[in-house]
């Protein structure tokens, strides 16, 4: 399946006229766009444009004052983060938000929480059903660890890992949720070229092989242009452009507000 056909998929998520303000600060003003099933959708814009806030709105951490969000055909203006998670929205964070006291393995296992069901009683015994469930999910997690090539740090507490690896573990944790929509907030910040390449590969593989829809915030324009099917550009909370990478790249407003002339 090629990504161009993906882009023609049905709409998975639509953001409609969303506005969000914190006291006097308007983080997002009347922004609408959509994400289609199976595409890689980039969100770019200068610092403070409201990109992260947009993701926070999508997965229910912020509640917009205005506007609606339609996800998988359901329209809503308000939902709780765990609901978003249970409907298949996973994400990574701009400032790494791993569970610092836990090992890589445990972090990723947390991603399986929603899919594990054995209650307190079996957990207390551990042997029997709880153990079997644990091992099933462990297997799945090991696949992810394999995929991301982080076998060596399986048992290391994540707090001590270098930044780049932390980002990778975070991706792993999101993958463990087997999401339909994956929100990535600057997954490649602070990485060198090689690591970026690795990351790109993971993203593409995900998209291609598992059909995961991806919303991507990234400041590396090279990455954005190469990976994404469509790009939405925000500035000061407003949407200033939306289209294919080529269109956006040529848009003078975007050059002016974001890219600068050098790119």
């Amino acid at each position, binding site marked *: 399946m090629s990504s161009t056909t993906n882009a023609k998929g049905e709409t998975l998520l639509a953001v409609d006229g969303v506005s969000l303000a914190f006291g006097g600060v308007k983080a997002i003003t009347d922004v609408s766009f959509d994400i289609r099933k199976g595409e890689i959708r980039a969100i770019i814009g200068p610092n403070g444009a409201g990109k992260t806030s947009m993701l926070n709105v999508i997965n229910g951490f912020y509640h917009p004052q205005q506007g609606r969000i339609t996800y998988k055909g359901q329209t809503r203006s308000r939902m709780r*983060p765990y609901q978003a998670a249970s409907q298949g929205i996973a994400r990574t964070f701009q400032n790494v938000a791993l569970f610092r*006291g836990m090992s890589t393995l445990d972090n990723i296992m*947390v991603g399986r929480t929603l899919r594990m069901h054995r209650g*307190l009683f079996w*957990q207390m015994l551990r042997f029997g059903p709880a153990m079997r469930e644990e091992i099933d999910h462990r297997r799945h997690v090991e696949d992810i660890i394999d995929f991301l090539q982080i076998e060596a740090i399986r048992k290391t507490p994540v707090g001590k890992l270098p930044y780049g690896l932390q980002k990778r573990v975070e991706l792993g944790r999101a993958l463990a949720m087997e999401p339909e929509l994956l929100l990535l907030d600057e997954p490649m910040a602070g990485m060198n070229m090689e690591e970026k390449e690795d990351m790109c590969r993971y993203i593409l593989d995900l998209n291609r092989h598992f059909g995961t829809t991806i919303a991507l915030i990234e400041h590396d324009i090279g990455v954005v242009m190469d990976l994404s099917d469509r790009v939405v550009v925000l500035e000061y909370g407003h949407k200033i452009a939306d289209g294919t990478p080529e269109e956006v790249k040529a848009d003078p407003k975007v050059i002016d507000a974001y890219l600068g002339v050098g790119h």
Partner: protein
Amino acid sequence: MFYRETGQFKQSYAADSAVFPILQDRYGLAIIMAIAFVLIPMFGSEFLLASVMIPFLILSLGAIGLNILVGYTGLLSLGTAGFMGVGAYATYKLSTLFPQVNILVWILCSGFFSAGIGVLFGLPSLRIKGFYLAVATLAAQFFLQWCFVRVAWLYNYNPSGAIEVSGRTLFGIAITGPMATPVNRYYVVLGVVVVMTLIASNIVHGRIGRTWMAVRDMDIAAQLMGIRLLPAKLLAFAVSSFYCGVAGALMVFLWLSAAEPSAFDIKLSFLLLFMVIIGGLGSLIGSFMGAALIHILPIVIRALPESLGLPVAAATVEHLTYLIVGGLIIFFLIVEPHGLARLWQITKQKLRVWPFPY
């Protein structure tokens, strides 16, 4: 050199996720169990059993309970002694209302009462965090203690306002009351503590434990992983209070054998919290180590001058004990802020690479 995991390969995920994956650790555990179950009761003096080991085990159990809340879920609580009191008074009421049922059953059941109360006082934890929550749980501490004083029904209208423990048996052997020998009481306490520690270990190493730790480390991210904070926190409160409740019941029934409300005062809450911190937040072994440091160490220091034949006045010994224990706490913190359990871990790690420094 001797502490190496070399050559021990894990064939299955089950083996790999065992609590003690390294062989030497399992030997160590077996030795400790042997000492606890055989050596100490055989050769220990009554003092060792009644004043060192029983309190130590009970406090450890309380510390485990608190550790589940503070160490694993990151909810600071200063109401521990109150919850312990609930367990004790519940056991007292139940065992006087239904004397025919075995006391041990009631001791374990009492945990449910404190779990209930714990959940109730855990409700604010959704909004209140950190030290603020600690102080909010003080409301529980003081309110509960006040109830123990004021609600005469709780202590069967005894004029002294204290609860007294009568002699009860298990399989015909006295386990509470004046006839229960320290050895008997020790075995009961040890049994309860070992089983409950095992259960706690199972819980914290499984899904629920991970949920708690996720809430502790980054509650926002945990939410976005699909964890619902309130149920997770309340479950932690419930389990934690259950443990504390049982510890409280054990404390009155197998250690003190009569207790005034002041047995559950704020000092105990603080002490347990300190045991948890110095032992190691989020470590079950740490709970034992912390209890040892804070309960056993002073006893040892107090006993020192006498066993060395130094004529030091009792009060001076007490002063010095304070001084030394305080100093040692600071010392240990500086050596390893993350507690004795971590210190132990690092020592093991050094052992592993020994004789090379790193």
